[in-house]
């Protein structure tokens, strides 16, 4: 396992850990998607989570949001152990997420999609739809949106309850470049307002511009962890991901 570069990072609030995964393991039919992984994420940052496909990034999201149960290990959020919590209780604690394969409610209208989250606020729904440019489609069934629009709807839906901690699974895949810029700006603003993000992304431009810290997974293990400049030059990361 590679050296951990945590010590190089500035810690604005001491070593507060917002989300901490401890010795987490999850296997699917013998293949370890997450393999004895220990990693923590601190508040008010945008974290990048990268690694080749199949490295365990999405599994990490599923474990954190409670849609999967780990075989071993612990997850805690602000010191609260949430390993065995129901997904909805985790969500109510302030962890929101999006999915890699879009999971909107296809037969509901765009606005109804925004009304599902627990504690949603209608005026904020409309505001967010306005922001992602979907306001005029509010009464159209969500399945009639284009791929990129559906992606945006899911993004907006994850933010409507103002979660403190947001897991974004490839938020910009298939979204046009102008909107990508806009989404990145929005993520930055929200971080300034005190929110925390983990972003899975394959678009290096987005990752390098947006993230203050990047965690690299490979075969379910953490192979690197540090600021972008560090990751770019890390030989192991180059071998496993960029290069190869």
């Amino acid at each position, binding site marked *: 396992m590679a050296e951990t570069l945590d010590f190089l990072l500035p810690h604005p609030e001491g070593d507060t850990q917002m989300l901490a995964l401890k010795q987490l393991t999850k296997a699917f039919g013998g293949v370890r998607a997450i393999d004895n992984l220990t990693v923590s994420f601190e508040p008010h940052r945008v974290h990048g989570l990268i690694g080749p496909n199949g490295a365990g990034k999405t599994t990490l999201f599923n474990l954190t*949001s*409670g*849609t999967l149960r780990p075989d071993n290990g612990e997850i805690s959020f602000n010191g609260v152990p949430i390993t065995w919590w*129901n*997904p*909805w209780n*985790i*969500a*109510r604690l302030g962890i*929101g*997420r999006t*999915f890699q394969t879009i*999971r*909107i*409610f*296809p*037969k*509901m209208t765009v606005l*109804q999609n925004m*009304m*599902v*989250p*627990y*504690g*949603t606020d209608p005026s904020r729904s409309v505001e967010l739809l306005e922001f992602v440019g979907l306001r*005029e*489609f509010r009464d*159209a069934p969500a399945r009639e949106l*284009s791929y*990129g*629009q559906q992606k945006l709807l899911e993004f907006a*839906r*994850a933010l409507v*309850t103002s979660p403190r901690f947001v897991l974004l699974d490839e938020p910009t895949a298939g979204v*046009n470049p102008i*909107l990508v810029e806009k989404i990145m700006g929005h993520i930055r603003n929200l971080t300034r307002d005190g929110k925390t993000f983990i972003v899975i992304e394959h678009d290096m431009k987005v990752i390098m511009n947006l993230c203050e810290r990047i965690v690299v997974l490979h075969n379910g293990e953490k192979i690197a962890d540090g600021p972008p400049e560090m990751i770019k030059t890390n030989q192991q990361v180059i071998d496993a991901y960029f290069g190869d």
Partner: protein
Amino acid sequence: MARGAKLLTLGVLFAGLVGLPFFLTGYKLRFVTWLLMWVGLASTWNLFSGYTGYINFGPVAFFGVGAYVTAVLMVKAGVSFFPALLAAGVLAGIAALLLGVPTLRIRGAYFAIATLAFSEATRSLTLNLSGLTEGGKGLMLPIYNNAYFFYFVILGLTVAVVATVAFIQRTRFGITLVSIREDEVASQVLGVNTFLNKMAAFGLSGVFLALYGGIYAYWQTFIEPGEVFNVLYSVQMLVMTFLGGSGTLLGPIVGAVVLGAMTEYLWATFTYVYLIFVGVLIVATVLFLPDGVWGYCVQTQSRRRRRAQPAPVLE
């Protein structure tokens, strides 16, 4: 439709339904009462299964429980009708919640089979608890020969059911139920306690089904397990809802009226082959109108409306 026009239509419809029995007699009144009951039963099935996508294949369990609790309380304990009916509703609600805890974890075909097994087990149990239910001999209730009474009780309950569904559809509860059907996991990570929501809808549908069962028992004056727990009743609720369009307010109503009227006509005209027609009708609906009659209307209408607007600019 404008709000005023809608209210007017509703008012006229309601007045019509209130006045209707005084123009009908005997057989026709019975038929309309029967039809109203099926509108309510289909709507109740839709309330849970149509919105959540969990196929309850044994709703007749609660109908039967309602019928028997009402009957036993009236016959064996001398309770009068309405208190007995109330007790039936409460008991069935509790039964639904108890059943819901283990079964609402399983999905798809498995949930359907589990609920079917429950309804068959309940029928069999009722048959065997002969000390209480007189088993296969059936139970004779006190005779109350007042067709208007049953018409209005059933009308009242059906209006209540439809109004409940209409209300739920407008609330977050309704949206939540649909989100469970569309993508349960996505709903959960958005903070929706899907379990609680499913339980609430399942319990509510259990109560309504039991109320119909109780009224039906008193209306028919004679019940036996083979009838009030008839699997075909379950299927009929399902077919009516699907025929009209499940997960919509008007679908089950349209479906119940269409299928009810059709079977009545076919039964009267071709007594021996009408079930073949019904079978053909079901097959044809599944293949050609997968969203049901009403669902089809709604879709074509909204498509037309959207076409009238300027085409959305895609990215």
